[in-house]
């Protein structure tokens, strides 16, 4: 009695043993990931302290920021994550990995790529929901759907996928050439970076550091020289002349740019896969110039409290004034100014945030990876090296100069977590991340490795002291470098979990409207860990 339709295919005939079948399926999964793009940013940012709302903000975003997310909030639907997961499960289950060509499994790249999509999606899901039904066998029938699924927490999800991904860590990404004028390799989640993240969440810091290090070194991803600074002619630091290669960095998707991977999105507003982020953060025709989200008082304070340093030819530093009366954004770290522009037009305030000028949503970029690498190194017991990433830029030369041998050496050689190809990672192409917005931080006498004023009893005590302080510096740097990109809430959560201090997250988030304006209601709500997560429906 069964009938066929050429427009549909069924599991029994969708065998995944030809390259066409596998491509269709991988593309199908990418299609489903698009549904998660906007929320990966909104849930990670609106709940933290760096974004604020205005009178135009629609209720669904307001709910997220107030931790009162209703069931019908479009960004609160676990189904969308499971749509990716179930399609991945099917693919991984059905892909004919036995097929080999020249003794190489021919679909191994797709296999690895899909494993990585699944792990990334589960990580997103568990970070937002805390505890999630977990399954890795495809659901293809109602009976499958009615199974009793175990509930995994963050720790369990991370452990599972570290094991799951490790065997494929060196598999290359599939190459489907260019799709919609983009290198399709940008569309994947690099396994090593994801492993770094999973280890970081699992508090396996050395492993995390090793993954980030390996990824950066292998792929020759030196930091580059993206930065914003007062030019040398601007003696008064007034901002008359700025050199800004930083703001444009976010729209450059060519190889060698800061962007490592993206969720590619459609350019047409009618498409389901159109990212609304630009219309939330920017004044556009689509929103009648009414943007809805803006950098908070808190990120402005953090930026302003940095000390901008300019080194003269001879290396002696001069410092920008702490306040700039003409343009308050030109005080302290300049990155906020580099990506945030405001102007008045027809009596309306117009805002543009350069981080949201492409169609796409970023998953990884270099600045982010370096800071996660720093976080891992610091917690692995290498705070000096971590700090080097912020202040000097990491390469052999700087490590030798600024890091004590206790960290840099390992046995008779270089600590493998810190060894970089000396010919590729040089002083010229490596910049301390802090220098991206705070001037020549390598000469900045106010930006120094935290050292206890009184010498402590043991090296370990000093180390512990440093790790906590450097971690604060890294967190601040993360705010300066990756604000609005969707990471802040998880960064705070990770540190709070690590330190076992709910108040750490609560305190920071409650200061969104400025340090003199603490939101006590929010603070108290966030003291309970349960309130950090969305409710599964």
């Amino acid at each position, binding site marked *: 009695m069964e009938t066929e339709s050429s427009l*549909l295919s069924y599991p029994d005939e969708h065998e995944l043993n030809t390259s066409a079948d596998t491509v269709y399926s991988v593309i199908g999964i990418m299609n489903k990931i698009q549904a998660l793009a906007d929320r990966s940013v909104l849930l990670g940012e609106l709940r933290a302290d760096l974004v604020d709302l205005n009178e135009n903000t629609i209720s669904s975003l307001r709910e997220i920021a107030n931790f009162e997310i209703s069931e019908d909030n479009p960004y609160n639907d676990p189904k969308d994550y499971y749509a990716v997961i*179930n399609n991945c499960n099917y693919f991984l289950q059905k892909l004919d990995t036995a097929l080999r060509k020249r003794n190489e499994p021919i679909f191994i790249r797709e296999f690895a790529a899909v494993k990585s999509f699944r792990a990334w999606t589960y990580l997103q899901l568990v970070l937002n929901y805390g505890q999630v039904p977990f399954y890795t066998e495809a*659901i293809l029938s109602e009976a499958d759907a009615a199974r009793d699924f175990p509930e995994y927490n963050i720790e369990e999800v991370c452990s599972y996928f570290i094991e799951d991904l490790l065997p494929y860590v060196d598999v290359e990404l599939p190459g489907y050439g260019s799709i919609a004028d983009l290198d399709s390799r940008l569309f994947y989640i690099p396994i090593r970076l994801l492993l770094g993240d999973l280890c970081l969440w699992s508090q396996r810091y050395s492993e995390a550091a090793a993954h980030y290090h390996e990824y950066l070194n292998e792929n020759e991803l030196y930091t580059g020289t993206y930065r914003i600074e007062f030019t040398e002619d601007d003696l008064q630091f007034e901002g008359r002349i700025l050199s800004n290669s930083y703001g444009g960095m976010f729209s450059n998707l060519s190889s060698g740019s800061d962007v490592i991977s993206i969720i590619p999105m459609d350019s*047409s507003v009618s498409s389901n896969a159109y990212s609304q982020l630009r219309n939330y953060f920017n004044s556009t025709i689509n929103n009648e110039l009414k943007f809805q989200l803006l950098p908070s008082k808190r990120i402005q304070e953090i930026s302003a409290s940095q000390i901008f340093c300019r080194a003269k030819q001879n290396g002696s530093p001069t410092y920008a004034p702490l306040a700039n009366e003409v343009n308050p954004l030109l005080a302290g770290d300049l990155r906020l100014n580099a990506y945030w522009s405001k102007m008045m037009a027809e009596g309306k305030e117009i805002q543009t945030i350069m981080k949201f000028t492409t169609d796409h949503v970023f998953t990884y970029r270099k600045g982010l990876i370096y800071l996660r690498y720093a976080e891992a190194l610091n917690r692995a017991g290498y705070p000096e090296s971590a700090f080097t990433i912020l202040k000097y830029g990491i390469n052999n030369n700087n490590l030798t100069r600024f890091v004590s041998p206790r960290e840099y050496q390992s046995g008779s050689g270089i600590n493998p977590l810190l060894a970089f190809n000396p010919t590729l990672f040089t002083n010229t192409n490596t910049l301390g991340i802090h220098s991206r917005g705070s001037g020549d931080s390598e000469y900045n006498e106010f930006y120094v490795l935290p050292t206890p004023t009184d010498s402590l009893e043991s090296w370990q005590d000093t180390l512990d002291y440093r790790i906590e302080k450097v971690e604060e510096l890294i967190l601040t740097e993360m705010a300066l470098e990756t604000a609005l990109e969707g990471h802040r809430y998880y960064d705070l959560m990770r540190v709070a979990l690590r330190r076992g201090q709910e108040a750490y997250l609560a305190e920071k988030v409650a200061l969104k409207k400025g340090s003199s304006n603490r939101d006590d209601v929010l603070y108290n709500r966030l003291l309970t860990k349960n309130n950090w997560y969305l409710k599964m429906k």
Partner: protein
Amino acid sequence: MYLSETSSKLIAEMKDCYAKIKFRSIFFLLMCILTVTVYAQAPENKTITGTVSEASTGNPLAGARVQAYNNSRFVAMTDEEGRYSLDLPVYINALTVTLDGFATQQLALKGQSSAVDAALYPESFIPVLSPLTNVLNAGSAERFDLSSAISIESEIQSQLGAEVRTISRSGIPGTGAAMFIGGYNSLNVNAQPLIVIDDVILDQQYGREMLHEGYYNNILSNLAVSDIESITVLKNGTSLYGAKGANGVLLIKTKRNRSMVTRIDANVSAGVEYSPRLPAMMNAAQYRSYASELLGTTETELTEFKFLKDDPDYYYYNQYHNETNWSDYVYREALTQNYSFGVQGGDEVAKYNLSIGYVDAQSTLNYNDFDRLNLRFNSDISINDKLSALFDCSFSNITRNLRDDGVMAPEESNVFSPGFLSLIKSPFLNPYQYDTNNKLSGFLSDADDYLDEVLGTTASLANPLYIFENGEARNKNYFENSLINLAIRPAYSINNRLSIKGHFSYTLVNTNENYYIPMTGVPKIVIPNVGLAENMVQSLYSSQISLFADLRMLWQKQSGANNTRIIAGGRYMNDDYSGNTQMGYDTGNDKTPNINSNLNFKKVDGAEDVWRSLSYYANLDYNYAEKYYLHAGLSMETSSRFGREVQGGIKLGGVSWGLFPSVAAAWVLSSEDWFSLAAVDYLKFNLAYDISGNDDIDYYAARTYFGSSVFMNRVTGLSIQNIGNTSIQWESTHRGGAGLEASLFKERVGIQLNAFLARTDNLLTLKKLNSVTGLDYNWSNEGSLNNRGFDLALNFKLLNRKDFNWEMGFSMGHYQNQITALPDNESFTTSIYGAEILSEIGRPAGLFYGYESQGVYANSETAAADGLYLLSKTGSKVYFGAGDVKFIDQDNNKEINADDKVVIGDPNPDLYGNIFTNINYRRVSLNVILNYSLGNDAYNYQRSQLESGSKFYNQSLAMLNRWTNEDQQTTIPRISYKDEMGNSRFSDRWIEDASYVRLKTVRLSYNLPLSTTYLNGLTLWASANNLMTLTRYLGSDPEFSSGNSVLCQGIDRGMLAFGPSVVLGIKFNL
């Protein structure tokens, strides 16, 4: 709650009964037959005598045929004095009397043997009883001779209006009607009856969408009314149609030739339909003032507008100072011509009926014409005594012009419907341009631009005349539908009791539609969230091939008082529908309206649906002495749409089968010897019980499948799109019916009454899936609803004189529908044209669910005292003020939000049906038919647009009473661009009582006293339709249908209404 205790009991009994029937029915029936056969061994005879006379004069009638009821072995003819005498076996209880020119009469013997007299009425009276006992008490109609209808639905409404609730779709010719039999037997899937034409199920493509707004592709309009012999409405006894019969069945028979006389008929008619009633709109000055006031509520800071300058010397004065009634250009008097020609003839070997018809029907809404050519050849071939075959073929081709009709959906911002445009277009503009000398030219005006400075082009409206003229071409706005059917029905008699019949049919339905919105005269087309386009082109092509095969065995036996007939057989159906639609924008100019690869925003959609079903069935009809009747049927059906593991059926051969039994019994009381009520000529009771199904299951609901989607506008991806519900099955409807048929006072009064009680279980609904599946819903069977009601038809012969007779009758139908279960017992709402439709346990389906209002705040003080507010989309409070509608805050929390919605209307009628009267004087007949529907509410969506006060649309005259100043007492709120307070939201402001009584048809015919060699008869007739409608409804027409689905009843989209029409016709018999 609504279900009384007794009815629950009845349902429980029905259930019980079903269970018993399943296991015992066959055994039980066999026992019955055997027992009765034994009793009927030794017939004794009796002699019956009486006279046959003419009822009007009492004159005896000679040559009348008096026959034992349904038994041609016992016949007598009346003599000169009208007397007859007939020897009959004792078990004969009734006679039939027939005579040419008179209505057949049934005579109950009631134990008498003499003075069994008949008084015959002329055949112009509608027969009160069916010729054979109507075991199921099914209604039927067969008088379509002088009909001016293009499609049969109109006649169904006129003649069977109480049994089939028939709601015309719109005044566009041939679009037919939505029909419901016995209430609503489904909620989410098809609820329209099954259409069976000459025993072949014809798929009506009910769920397929067309390109033109407001247009419905009515497959049934392929059938010419003049080709139809009879229509029967089956509510019970549907086991033959198993999983397809739950919505009731319309059995349509086409004409066949039964005699060897050659007959030629020709029927020619022509008519005119006048423009329908339209809402009264503001004139130029009134609209100018409205627009000027509305501009004040926009954010504009401009103060000068060309259209507001009243200086006659001003250059643009003429352009903006016209008094145009746009409807004059859009509507017209429509002409209709209808020709049909039929030849019947043949000999002992072959008889045939050939007919050809042509209809050209204009529409009162310009450019919506209907053209149909139809051809039908039905033949009966007798090869020898045992072998015969019916061979039929038919072809029809419909072509049309089409334009969008009705108000577009609220989310749609383009207005392309000329009818609606003609209402809302500013009356101060002119369809034609002024030339440089400020003289009116013959060139059409472009889309309007008088608001461009403020609103850009978004408020611009098209010139409807451009949509007509530049949209006119075969490759622009054109529709074609053709239907071909070939059927062969061989029959072989093995002996005089047993025969085998086959039925093989092939049907092809092709549909082609082109849609085009020109670039000239039309503002830029808004493609939501994408951008603007110059013009728009769409095309649709679909083709459906249906194969039907039925093979059955018949066995019948008449033995004394026992009459038995058994049919057993199997039926196989295969349907293959494929279709695709394409759309694109910006063809470059209006000369090349073709789909090509260079178009912008192209979209291609397709469907390829294949479904098949197989069923086995057996029917038994038995009667004893034409007095006690029993009908029993059982079918088992499987379908490609069923899951493999259905709960309610049986598993056989790896597939699931549904079982569909029906039983019916009838008792002709008047045939009992003891029956002595002199006033009652005939009385029959019947009971019936059926379980039937609705197999309108999503084609692939049972299967888990992958579907494709486009990634980055370029590449295709495959992903899981459905988790199959392997237990998906038909909706099952249990229907019990009881009926009565009677004729009283010497056949002066005829009564047909049916009452029914039905329950539908396993409603097909979308059920929420566990979110771990990554999908929202899949189809499942959950939920139930009940229907109960009745239909009654009464017929009175008021006068019967020699040259003058007068009859009158009426029918009324009623149903009460109630939802009794829903998935997770949660009520839900469905959004249709701005309306919210509630589905809730304990209530009928289709209720309007919205806000209640209580007038308009006259001043700020009263508004502030109430302190009602709504939350803007950013979450801030916005208070209702002076001139705003006072919505009822049901939960008293001051916030007007979704929690304040209540049921504000019910589109279900209390009563519906017809009233008719026929008067015959000599050769002149006058027929009058009224139809009515009482107690049904409507959502006047069109009016909600014409009185919204939120757009620069011309408004109805009611808007002159809009609130403009403090302390003004009125029921019409202030106007406000974009209506921030939602004063025009879906509320009881737009719900109206749509009850009506309509004078549907008045027909006068004259049968010329002719009999020449070449001409056997000539009838002249004239009919007037829709002369008058009594209603309080404010829309153009209280009868409209926005769709076939249960949930979109009572929503008035303002589609073309019927205007009054007059048709003149001549019928020749050669």
